[in-house]
């Protein structure tokens, strides 16, 4: 990571520092040749020669692939290069808000969350069609632009970051929460890993809470691999059934059970948007009416912003922490009543105590004779044969 102040990198004149990460620093820089302002992302290639060579080849390979991508939902990469053991990537400078910041501010309306996910899914589908997998989809890598547009960032360096994580176990827990199960277990990755990560982002946008959490990296990764989350509608009832299905399909543990292509997810999310449209229009209409009747428009807007989230994220965290093997449980249905049986288990009578906990064993001969009609006839016939034969022989 660059520790000294830089004035120039390649042909770019550095103007200000925009942010720092584990891998490097992001600057605002000026390109004097094309006379435009760019975001310059630097990545320290490391001091070890072997490591540096590996980073170097992978960085340029990924950067080339990412630079080929030209889509409204993907950040445009202008240039990349290396100078003084510092790789850099010049990309368009975005003036927007990171999705993580937006999520921290408060709940995202349903239709807005779906619209964001739909744009991200479309961007990912385009990237996948061009042979690029992002590998690090998370709210911090999604930027919200004015007029509802969305950009996915950090294409081309995701693989480097994943590699970096392997050397920094236990020191950074940000990204593992958005990893797919196969990613967390070191399996083979394909485009479906991005679909899982997008599923997590969508889940968190819909519910307002964190999906996979843990006290340590190992715990987080374990939960990613094993925890079966409840449908979002359990946490936020206004989530539609169709949206539930989309999220749960994206979050399937087995890649084969997920969407095979991000385009399929795009189609389903568009259907969800259509389904949500009447509700959105109705809510907008009622909001407008109430705004006209009661309060000024500005205050009405404030009201929508300060809505409290209906989900306490700590609930999910506790559930994850307590379950050693989460694949062994299912949630009680809310459509069908189980109250009587639950009451029976909660306050069992002495007979229940004896009957409900007994280990099954094969029935004895007498019980079989009494209850198994075929067996009883068989036994009776045999006995009768013996008696008759005996009588015949001995009389």
């Amino acid at each position, binding site marked *: 990571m660059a520790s000294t102040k830089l004035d120039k990198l390649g042909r770019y004149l550095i103007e200000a520092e925009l942010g720092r990460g584990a891998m490097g620093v992001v600057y605002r820089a000026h390109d004097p040749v094309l006379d435009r302002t760019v975001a310059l992302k630097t990545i320290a290639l490391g001091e070890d020669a072997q490591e540096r060579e590996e980073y170097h080849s992978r960085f340029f390979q990924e950067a080339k692939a990412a630079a080929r991508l030209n889509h409204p939902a993907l950040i445009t990469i202008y240039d990349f290069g290396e100078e003084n053991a510092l790789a850099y990537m010049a990309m368009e400078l975005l003036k927007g808000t990171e999705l993580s910041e937006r999520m921290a501010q408060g709940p995202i309306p349903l239709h807005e969350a779906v619209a964001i996910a739909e744009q991200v899914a479309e961007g990912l589908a385009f990237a996948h069609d061009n042979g690029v997998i992002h590998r690090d989809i998370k709210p911090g890598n999604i930027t919200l632009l004015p007029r509802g547009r969305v950009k996915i960032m950090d294409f081309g360096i995701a693989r480097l970051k994943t590699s970096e994580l392997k050397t920094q176990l236990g020191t950074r827990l940000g990204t593992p929460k958005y990893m797919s199960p196969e990613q967390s277990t070191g399996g083979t990755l394909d485009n479906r890993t991005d679909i899982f990560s997008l599923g997590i982002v969508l889940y968190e946008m819909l519910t307002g809470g964190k999906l996979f959490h843990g006290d340590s990296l190992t715990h987080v990764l374990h939960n990613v691999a094993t925890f079966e989350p*409840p449908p979002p509608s359990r946490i936020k009832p206004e989530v539609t059934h169709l949206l539930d299905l989309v999220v749960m399909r994206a979050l399937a543990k087995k890649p084969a059970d997920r969407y095979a292509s991000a385009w399929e997810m795009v189609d389903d999310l568009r259907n969800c948007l259509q389904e949500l449209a009447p509700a959105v229009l109705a809510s907008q209409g009622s909001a407008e009416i109430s705004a006209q009747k009661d309060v000024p428009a500005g205050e009405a807007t404030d009201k929508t912003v300060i809505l409290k989230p209906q989900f306490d994220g700590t609930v999910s965290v506790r559930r994850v922490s307590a379950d050693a093997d989460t694949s062994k449980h299912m*949630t009680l249905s809310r459509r069908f009543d189980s109250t009587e049986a639950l009451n*029976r288990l909660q306050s069992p009578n002495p007979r229940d105590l004896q009957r409900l*906990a007994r280990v099954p064993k094969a029935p004895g001969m007498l019980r079989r004779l009494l209850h198994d009609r075929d067996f009883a006839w*068989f036994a009776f016939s045999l006995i009768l044969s013996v008696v008759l*034969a005996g009588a*015949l022989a001995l009389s």
Partner: protein
Amino acid sequence: MTEAEHLPVLSSVVLLRICDYARRPVAEQARLNAQLDTVLALLLPDIPARTRLVLAGNGSVAVAVLDNAPAALAFAERALHAYDAGLGLCIGIDHGPVEVLSNAASEELAGDGVATASVMAASATDAGLRMTQNFRTALAQMSPGAETALVPTVNLSDAGLRTYQVYGLDHLAPRRRRRLFMLITAITACVLLAIATSLRLWMPDRPRPFASEVVVSKPAPHPAPPPAERPFRFFYGKH
């Protein structure tokens, strides 16, 4: 999550999973889920409310039947008929330990019973029913003879390397058993009767514990009949 004050029990868990659920479009998934709800609404009243817990999952439903394995099997058999309405269900049944866990958001049923039923359902093909040895034993205990309809199909190892003997449903198996019983009975009876008859024929001096002890005196010989008078005869010719 905290454990509630619920009794951990052994119950028969019937897990109904929509076949090929993950590979269907979401709109079709929604339709199939609605169909599955209808099937449950129709069939659940057959199981007494105090003996069943209904669990929901994504594209699957489980019913934990307490202390009534025959009812669980009957429910599963009837659910298979949903295939006629276009709803293919892969059904797995296990009889194993389960426990209700409660937290602020919801109540869950956890335990090997649920996990093993899920493994069985995963091994079932379209509109198929798979059961474990434990369930077969529980069924035999509750309703001796009913377990004969469950016949071994395959051995299965799950991801945790546990091996299960998987049983399938064969309605002809009880009939075959009955025929086998009849055949054994007939052969046995024939053999025994043949032995008894041969004893009678070839061992006249055999012990006869059930023979009558009364000595029958020999009847007095009948007196020789008096010679009949020479009948009159006609002779044709010389004497």
